[in-house]
């Protein structure tokens, strides 16, 4: 349906902040944490940026309602970067002008890498919810919530191999996308050590993602009993539809980008996803309280089912909260001091979030969390 995405994003964040700021005495003017978010809210990748924005907004609202972080209220502002590196730097600069002290972003890998350079210069704490390329956490002030691409490629290959899920595997990936090609590379490399064989590796590009008949036909002709889809759910939905139409029914295996397939595509026939396996840290229909309350709020507010980007971003805010609480930094400290404090705290905190229980971080920015392998049964995730 029509999500009311026309809700002014930053407005929502700030409104929430000011409302609860009025309630909370401790938040005198100037003593609020300012967190900036970056991601595409227009253009072809808008769906991911909007998810990151909305996920964070929910977390911010909860935190402020519960009295803030260490008693300080939090303000949040989100800036559009159109998934472009240069615009992402602009967005970062705009946030800096606004007074941002901490960055939740950027959403997409390429853009995120460009921003890491800038946050490094300013020594500003940056945690990306979804930037999965290796270089997204290249500096000591960069952290991420999601898995890295090689990590996912490796884990996928190992999981398939160890559980003997398939013998012949075809890969369909987006050769123009950092995330997808990153996972693909590692997967194929690792496949050499595994008991299965990659029989076909077919690509598509950002400009060429309506028709997948050839890729599917090739997978079929190569006799693949499993198709690995290290891609996002929007394209996956099309692939599943087209495979069904041509009567091809292999096993499907995917990564966290697939998350969202159950609710992220309006009007999509989810029966097509029956049996799809994926490694994901988040499931919108998990039954734990945290997920349920998040999903309910999200649906209420934005009319959509949250995907993994939203969950990652929600967690990112709570990670920020934990790091602040641990380090005891205050809003009146300089950006650099806040960063130093939080950096140090990052390796000491443990966070239970939507995307993992007991998440911890290494100093090089990677999250320690176990990917959960799930399979879709009766339109719902089920642990494997």
């Amino acid at each position, binding site marked *: 349906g029509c999500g009311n995405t026309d809700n002014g994003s930053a407005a929502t964040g700030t409104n929430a902040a000011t409302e609860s700021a009025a309630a909370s005495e401790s938040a005198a003017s100037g003593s609020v944490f300012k967190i900036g978010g970056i991601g595409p809210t227009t253009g072809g990748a808008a769906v991911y940026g909007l998810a990151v924005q909305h996920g964070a907004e929910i977390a911010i609202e909860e935190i402020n309602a519960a009295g803030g972080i260490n008693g300080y209220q939090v303000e949040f502002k989100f800036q559009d970067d159109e998934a472009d590196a240069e615009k992402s730097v602009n967005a970062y600069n705009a946030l800096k002008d606004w007074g941002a002290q901490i960055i939740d972003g950027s959403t997409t890998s390429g853009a995120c890498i460009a921003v890491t350079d800038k946050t490094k210069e300013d020594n500003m704490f940056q945690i990306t919810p979804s930037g999965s390329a290796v*270089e997204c956490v290249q500096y000591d002030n960069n952290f991420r919530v999601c898995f890295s691409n090689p990590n996912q490629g490796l884990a996928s290959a190992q999981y398939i191999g160890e559980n003997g899920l398939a013998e012949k595997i075809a890969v369909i990936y987006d050769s*123009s996308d950092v995330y997808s090609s990153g996972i693909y590379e590692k997967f194929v490399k690792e496949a050499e050590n595994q008991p299965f064989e990659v029989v076909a590796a077919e690509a598509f590009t950002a400009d060429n993602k309506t028709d997948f008949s050839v890729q599917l036909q090739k997978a079929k002709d190569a006799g693949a009993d499993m198709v690995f889809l290290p891609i996002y759910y929007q394209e996956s939905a099309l692939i599943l539809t087209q495979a069904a139409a041509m009567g091809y029914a292999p096993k499907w295996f995917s990564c966290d980008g697939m998350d969202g397939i159950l609710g992220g595509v309006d009007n999509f026939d989810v029966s097509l996803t029956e049996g799809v396996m994926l490694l994901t840290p988040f499931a919108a229909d998990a039954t734990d309280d945290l997920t349920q309350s998040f999903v309910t709020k999200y649906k209420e507010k934005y009319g959509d089912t949250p995907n993994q980007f939203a969950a990652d971003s929600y967690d990112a805010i709570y990670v920020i909260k934990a790091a602040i609480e641990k380090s005891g930094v205050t809003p009146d400290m300089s950006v650099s001091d806040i960063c130093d404090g939080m950096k140090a705290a990052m390796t000491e905190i443990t966070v239970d979030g939507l995307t993992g229980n007991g998440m911890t971080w290494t100093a090089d920015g990677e999250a320690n969390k176990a990917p959960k392998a799930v399979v879709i049964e009766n339109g719902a995730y089920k642990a494997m």
Partner: protein
Amino acid sequence: MKKLSNKKINKTFRDNLITYGMVIAAYVIMQILVSAGSVSSLIQGLLVPLCTYAILAVSLNLTVGILGELSLGHAGFMCIGAFTSAFFSKVMENSAMPSGLRFFFAIMIGAFFAGVFGLLIGIPVLRLKGDYLAIVTLAFGEIIKNLVNIMFVGRDENGFHISFTNTMDLNMSEDGDVIIKGAQGITGTPHDSSFTIGIVLLLITLFIVLNLIHSRDGRAIMAIRDNTIAAESVGIHITKYKLMAFSISAALAGVAGVLYAHNLSTLTALPKNFGYNMSIMILVFVVLGGIGNIRGSIIASVILTLLPELLRGLNDYRMLIYSIVLIVMMLFNWAPKCIEWREKVAARFKKSVKKEAE
């Protein structure tokens, strides 16, 4: 007779001087403001991109305004300049070469390769006309983007390796270093671009383009634009001059690419930055600023690059407002009715100024 020709030289001279002066003044003012600390980070961050887009617009104006051919593949040349130069800089990063010299060579390399591609593409393509030429340039731009996206280049002790599938096919030794990683492009290009260098490059671009226009070759190029058959009939070598304009234009776009690549730590060939959308965006600068009007190109590129950034306060409505403003500006600048109205207003204004002076 002397007087007349002098007048003309003076007029173009003055016109060019205004253009250079405008750029230099903008530079000086910005530098003063920056050192006074009264420029926001956003604007500071935009200084190099502004130079990049201004160079692109000027260079495309050479093709569209002066040569009179519609090119929709300019981003492709920018892409070549960006990747070749970033590759060079990455390779030389740990060599003994001082960074200034390295960047100088990077610029030369970017311009050279983009220019050579311009030449190679121009030879077959410039026989086509109008929209057919446009679509073929668009096609070349897309081909370049596609190939860059699947290109892997690595280096180890055995030298360079190239593959068009994935890194494994590079067959590199353990401690080899993959420099271009397909869709992941090049990361960690040294940050050599600066506002000063950008302005210098813009001034050089202006110098080349303006001087070319007002020379014998420029006249030949414009004659071809105005009437190919007549130009041939007075002995102008059509292909030669078309190619000259096209490859100079491509080389300058390559320079813009170098500036772009050395301003960000990541370089990927996405539809957004090197696809036809970008080519079209550059064309928008050119047309909005006035076809053949070099100064207009610079102004339009600055306005249209700043606009979406300054509209950030509008949040979700940002790009919507941007598109409306674009349409309105186009109507204002180009609709004959608006032009007439503007002229009238200007005339009235002049009159009243005169009266006051009296």
